[in-house]
């Protein structure tokens, strides 16, 4: 090249074009500068077909369509640092960096993912994603102490059945616990994607922090969860002792990081915590809890006037607006917030009741928002009722 440059700029340019052209032609014809990507299962070390391979972010092919299962050959790799990303349904994706030409064969190990979809036809794009996570701890009403609960981490079937039970008796029968004056859409059940995450080696601890704690790495693997439910096994001993009642809790750490905990056998608590975590509903009892006017379609207002105006505009009786206060007389607890929904209200204590008109209106709002997203994705008149509308599809 140095010699050529001395002969003049034109010579250099022509030589560059020639070298480039010939290099490209030769490399193309003889498959030079190629890198082989071998995709294997982490535990069995067997080559895996059906994996999609991306080179530097661009799709390169899948490991079933080549002559040798598990291998994709990437041609025309330039010297330098590169990335290979491998995805496969049911597996965690893996991205590997490598340097070419130092490495010409790249082995990418992928492991089975812990996330299990419970939708019979698979997840629906833009639907509401609820992920259940098993807790390895529960609470003993005999000792009044947290204790290890191996139930779920040693028995996936038990956990799965408990999850299905909760789904069927809370999320899929919401219409039985909401106000008939604001009926839910007929196909509301199909607005949900349900999953459970099962990795017995790293369970959640429902009794570490108010809403429990999830293992590090969970949020990295599950970025799309709208609500993550830490489900814990039934308390040990009986609930007869009033000082030992099952608890629930919701905490939100930003969009995609809402978590709640609830006991598997207390559907009322699941309902109440879902009211917080998914539907953004406020508690309506008087106590040490967090109140705010949860617009739009609130179930708690920051003034009587707001409550009454809202009631009027939604054909509800404004006279039912009342301050949040305890039932004793004179009330030992009064808050500067107002509610409309009659008792027994799910959001008033989890011991029964239904979601009132106001709460149901908000539930409908959230479902309608989800529906818009699903419709936008499907480009049709709405989600197809692929899930059972009777709620038995998950059993």
């Amino acid at each position: 090249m140095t010699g050529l440059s001395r002969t003049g700029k034109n010579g250099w340019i022509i030589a560059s074009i020639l070298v480039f052209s010939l290099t490209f032609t030769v490399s193309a014809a003889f498959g030079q500068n190629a890198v082989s990507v071998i995709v294997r299962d982490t535990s069995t070390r067997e080559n895996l077909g059906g994996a999609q391979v991306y080179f530097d972010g661009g799709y390169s092919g899948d490991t079933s369509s080549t002559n040798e299962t598990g291998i994709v050959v990437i041609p025309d790799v330039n010297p330098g640092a590169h990335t290979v990303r491998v995805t496969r349904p049911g597996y965690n994706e893996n991205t590997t960096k490598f340097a070419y030409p130092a490495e010409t064969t790249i082995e990418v190990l992928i492991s089975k993912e812990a996330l299990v979809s419970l939708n019979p036809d698979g997840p629906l794009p833009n639907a509401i994603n609820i992920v259940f996570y098993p807790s390895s701890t529960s609470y003993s009403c005999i000792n009044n102490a947290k204790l290890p609960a191996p139930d779920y981490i040693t028995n996936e079937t038990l956990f799965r059945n408990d999850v299905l039970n909760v789904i069927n008796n809370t999320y899929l029968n919401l219409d039985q616990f909401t106000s008939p004056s604001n009926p839910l859409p007929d196909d509301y059940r199909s607005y949900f994607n349900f999953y459970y995450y099962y990795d017995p080696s790293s369970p959640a601890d429902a009794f570490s922090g108010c809403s429990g704690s999830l293992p590090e790495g969970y949020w990295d693997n599950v970025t799309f969860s709208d609500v993550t439910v830490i489900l814990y096994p039934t308390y040990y001993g009986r609930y007869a002792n009033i000082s030992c009642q099952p608890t629930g809790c919701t905490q939100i750490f930003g969009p995609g990081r809402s978590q709640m905990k609830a006991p598997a056998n207390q559907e009322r608590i699941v309902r109440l915590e879902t009211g917080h975590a998914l539907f953004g509903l406020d508690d309506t009892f008087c106590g040490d809890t967090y109140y705010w006017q949860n617009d739009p379609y609130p179930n708690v207002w920051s003034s009587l006037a707001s409550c009454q105006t809202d009631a009027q505009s939604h054909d509800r009786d404004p006279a039912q607006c009342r301050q949040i206060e305890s039932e004793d007389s004179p009330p030992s607890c009064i808050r500067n917030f107002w509610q409309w929904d009659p008792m027994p209200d799910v959001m008033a204590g989890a011991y029964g009741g239904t979601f009132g008109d106001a709460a149901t209106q908000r539930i409908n709002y959230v479902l309608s928002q989800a529906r818009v997203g699903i419709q936008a994705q499907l480009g049709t008149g709405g989600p197809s009722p692929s899930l059972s509308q009777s709620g038995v599809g998950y059993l």
Partner: protein
Amino acid sequence: MRGIVIGCLVILLAGILCTPVTGTQPLSPNYDKILQIHLNYVDKLYSVSSMEVRYGRAPNLDILSGNLKGVILDSNGNVLKSFSFQEPGTTEGIISDPPRENTLIGYTETSSSGEMTITLPYLSDMQKFTLSDTGDGGSQLVSVDLNPPVAAFCTDYPRDPDCLVLVSPSTSAESHPDTALLAAILFSASLIIAIGIANRTIRRRTKMQTSEKPVVLIVDDEPDIVELITIFLRTKNYATLNANSGNACLDILKKQIPDLILLDVRMEPMDGWQTLEQIKKNPDFKSIPVLMLTGDTLTAQRAKQYNICMEDYITKPFLPEDLYTAIDRILMRKQKLKETLALTKNVGIEKEKLCEYAALTRRISINKRILDILRVPRGIPEQADLRTLDDMLVVDYLNVRTRDNEKRAEQLRREINSVLRGKGLPELGW
């Protein structure tokens, strides 16, 4: 000349047509991506601790509501996505109420400090994210430039379709098998045209190094490399100066101050690192940004020794786009500071504060680049990780420094923006 170019094009097309096809039609490639913004909050003051674009699915933002409002803006300032969500730190729980049978009472704790992560879907042309508190009169809590995380992602995944949109189509050859041929032809044709333009430019070279064009000093002892980089840079309207050694570089600097120095590491007798030391020792030269260019891997020790001196580090061989991106990033930073200084003159913002902010953002950006380079490729066996304890300490050191710098920069940004808002001026966009 024309005949030769046409001949070359024919050879090139023949080569393309001979390219063996591997794989078949793709099975719905999955390019879903998210942007994650990690924030720290203390008493409703939010600061960004890190941001990243990665592959993954986003949660459903449309079903959320709350006092905090997030907005994603495009390059024209239009809203791409707007959503509301609940402020973090609030806990709503139920516990038993022993005095009253069958009654549960509420349990709440509001943590005034902690961490929050905002997971957003990746959107084309996303440029800025703002977070405001609608319950507090709409005061802006966070405003961040989304270009750095997008650029970092595209460094690792240059062939991702969203990255191909951001750069020239010449790098898109392998992104889709069904478009590979077209992309390869476009690539070849555009390369030939580019070289043709470069050739004409060289032939017409007279007095083009005017002061209006940014001047880049290329320091490399390999004339071919200098020649090649010169062609690349001139097609992008940069003026260039050349030096074939460290000493020649220092001689040129005595006569002319360039906007940027591209410095090769492997030179004799004075290597690139020694030249860098000499440049930074001289008060007249020390403010010139230096971009290191080398075939060697950056070691942790070198990174620690020189991270405060260099602006970026590019490994040969490199794509022209890598070079343009790095140069643009450095020169844009300089330009933005200049513009902001002019804009904020006489509005009550101390120049020192603005300069400290600029220096910190520069340092954060460089440290992140260095940390990216030092990061060990994932998936390699443990025994292949040859990093020493010292290397890891350097990485830790850089991480800690970066976090400290980010906290201070965020504090300064808020103070500066608060003044700018008060004066009705646009807030810092960098």
